[in-house]
């Protein structure tokens, strides 16, 4: 069983890679085959991710978390590359393949034919995402980031057109510059700490000499800037709204997980390397994260209230979600982090569903050749509308507007964090944890030794969380009124069944998470605890023995595998 899980850890990388290779070999045509292949591959990845998640969560209460460490090429930990499956990474794997699957299903209705190699690029993106979530090595993280970004460059240009190419050009330039920063940061850390393995780095930081520590912190700060560009923190996020708003809707829906990669890396590295045990470097940069997160939320709110079109609103929701997460992570306590993880799942699913929903809504407002014009009266008179024979592929869904309206309202509730959906549960968990005695590492960073009290920054954070929810509600309500109620001669968009399925599935998933909030919150709590107490992770990676090949018995001497592995592991 352990062996199976161990080898399963690399499957989320290999499976999409192999599928993408087959798709490229299939050529530019045969979209149906590629679409089916892609959906099957992503579903299998999702299945693998879920089984990894169940494995990671299988440790009994009180025990250290179950961690599966895969030594790539069978090189021992600090020297070789490791893939690590724990609660956090498997959770992110499940989220990534869910979002990708939704985008993929949605694209099959029409968007995947807007350009070439859509499905292959999506598979490569999934591979890069999974690799970034699994790897335990800084430079390998860079490689998977680049795989992911290269695929995303192709996807952001999918559909072409001058505005899209312009936004894509900016997106690529910004990300190439950020990749340079990533390399500088990673090599500085290697030069100062002498390791690229995350677990080894966490073990070495507390015992670094002072002159090396300064270099190491500089490297970490530069690395952090690279991740924050990707996560979309305030002064580094001006590329984001245009790129996301102009990407084709399924791509934008998939991209809602991309900013979360930056968040994930910060969530993984910052508490591990600069946690409470990091000696002089404890909570390094925490206040920057906190203030940056608060400013990001403020920027996102202003942008959201100022934007007129729906895709741009969704893009600003991405920024608000990033800012909230950054600020909550910077609070530096496991309680707030647990709420933040819940929020991460909820906001990613909601934004993803929102991007897809916007496409359907916008289709009704701008009647094109492919949009069947049906008046509101006609729809309300005959609810049981027959599938239209003029459109051979799609099935007209009765009460389309009702579904779209309910979907829009659900997205608004999720994004604003109002009851009864997960957005509220997540925000409540975060705010609740901030009031707990051990939940306020926020304002306590600078006053070491004294009992932590609710600092000005944490009050600001709470105010910003609540105000941002209010602002999102105002903006969404305004947009909803404008879209659904104001137009008198509104047209009902022609919506295919396949396009509604992913949206409804994403929103139902959020609803399920709400109903199952207890077990989910327990899981998030366990995840957050293991993030903030990374000894299990560090020991799991560094003590992982190499697997000796089955040595044949030579000269009557049996192979002495266990004793030889002892020399390898430190």
């Amino acid at each position, binding site marked *: 069983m352990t062996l199976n899980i161990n080898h399963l850890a690399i499957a989320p990388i290999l499976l999409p890679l192999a599928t993408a290779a087959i798709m490229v070999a299939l050529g530019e045509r045969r979209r149906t085959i590629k679409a089916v292949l892609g959906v099957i591959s992503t579903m299998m990845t999702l299945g693998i991710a879920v089984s990894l998640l169940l494995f990671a969560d299988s440790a009994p209460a009180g025990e250290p978390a179950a961690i599966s460490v895969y030594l790539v090429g069978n090189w021992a930990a600090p020297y070789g590359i490791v893939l690590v499956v724990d609660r956090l990474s498997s959770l992110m794997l499940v989220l990534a393949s869910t979002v990708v699957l939704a985008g993929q299903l949605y694209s099959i209705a029409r968007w995947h034919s807007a350009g070439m190699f859509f499905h292959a690029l999506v598979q490569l993106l999934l591979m890069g995402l999974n690799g970034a979530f699994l790897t335990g090595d800084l430079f390998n993280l860079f490689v998977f980031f680049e795989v992911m970004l290269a695929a995303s460059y192709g996807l952001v240009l999918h559909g072409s057109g001058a505005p899209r190419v312009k936004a894509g050009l900016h997106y690529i330039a910004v990300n190439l510059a950020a990749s*340079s920063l990533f390399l500088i940061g990673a*090599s500085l850390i290697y*030069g100062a700490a002498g390791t690229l393995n995350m677990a080894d780095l966490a073990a070495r930081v507390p015992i670094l000499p002072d002159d090396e520590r300064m270099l190491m912190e500089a490297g970490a700060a530069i690395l952090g800037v690279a991740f924050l560009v990707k996560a979309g923190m305030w002064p580094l996020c001006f590329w984001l709204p245009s790129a996301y708003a102009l990407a084709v809707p399924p791509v934008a829906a998939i991209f809602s997980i991309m900013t979360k990669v930056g968040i994930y890396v910060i969530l993984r590295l910052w508490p591990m390397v600069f946690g409470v045990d990091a000696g002089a470097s404890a909570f390094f940069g925490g206040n920057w994260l906190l203030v940056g997160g608060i400013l990001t939320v403020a920027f996102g709110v202003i942008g959201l209230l100022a934007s007129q079109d729906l895709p741009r609103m969704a893009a600003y929701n991405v920024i608000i979600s990033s800012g909230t997460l950054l600020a909550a992570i910077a609070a530096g306590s496991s309680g707030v982090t647990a709420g933040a993880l819940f929020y991460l799942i909820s906001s990613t699913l909601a934004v993803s569903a929102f991007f897809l929903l916007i496409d359907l809504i916008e289709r009704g407002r701008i009647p094109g050749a492919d949009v069947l014009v049906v008046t509101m009266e006609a729809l309300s008179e005959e609810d049981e509308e027959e599938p239209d024979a003029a459109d051979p592929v799609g099935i007209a869904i009765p009460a389309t507007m009702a579904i779209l309206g309910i979907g829009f309202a659900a997205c608004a509730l999720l994004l604003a964090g109002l009851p009864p959906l997960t957005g509220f549960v997540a925000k409540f968990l975060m705010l609740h944890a901030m009031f707990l005695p051990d939940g306020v590492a926020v304002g306590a960073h600078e006053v070491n030794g004294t009992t932590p009290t609710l600092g000005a920054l944490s009050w600001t954070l709470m105010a910003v969380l609540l105000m941002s929810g209010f602002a999102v509600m105002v903006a969404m309500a305004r947009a909803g009124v404008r879209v659904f109620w104001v137009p008198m001669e509104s047209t009902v968009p022609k919506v295919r069944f396949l396009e509604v399925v992913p949206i409804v599935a994403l929103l139902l998933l959020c609803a399920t998470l709400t109903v199952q909030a207890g077990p989910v919150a327990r899981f998030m709590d366990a995840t957050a605890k293991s993030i903030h107490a990374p000894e299990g992770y560090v020991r799991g990676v560094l003590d992982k023995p190499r697997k000796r090949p089955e040595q044949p018995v030579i000269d009557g001497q049996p192979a002495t595998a266990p004793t030889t592995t002892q020399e390898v592991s430190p």
Partner: protein
Amino acid sequence: MEIILALSIGALAGSGVWLILRSRTYQVLIGLSLLSYAVNLFIFSMGRLRTDAPPILEKGVPNTLAHYTDPVPQALVLTAIVITFAMTALFLVVLLVARGLTRNDHVDGRES
């Protein structure tokens, strides 16, 4: 040697950043390339500068860093060169597409 390397990294990075901030797409491309050269040299220098020290183990020489140079940054540089090369090529393609679509080479697609 350290001074020369540091100065050349600085010169490359400085001109790269300056070019990135220019308004023509081709200048941005060259800026990104120069920046990546600077980064590659920087990664290389993180393995400490040594002369006459091979990165590959030899028989009869004790395998400590006193006798060898650190091979890891060299491996990292190779990876980084390959990746930045591919990304620059991709950026060049997008640049040409943008040039074709907007009929000028301003990064915003229009002269302002």
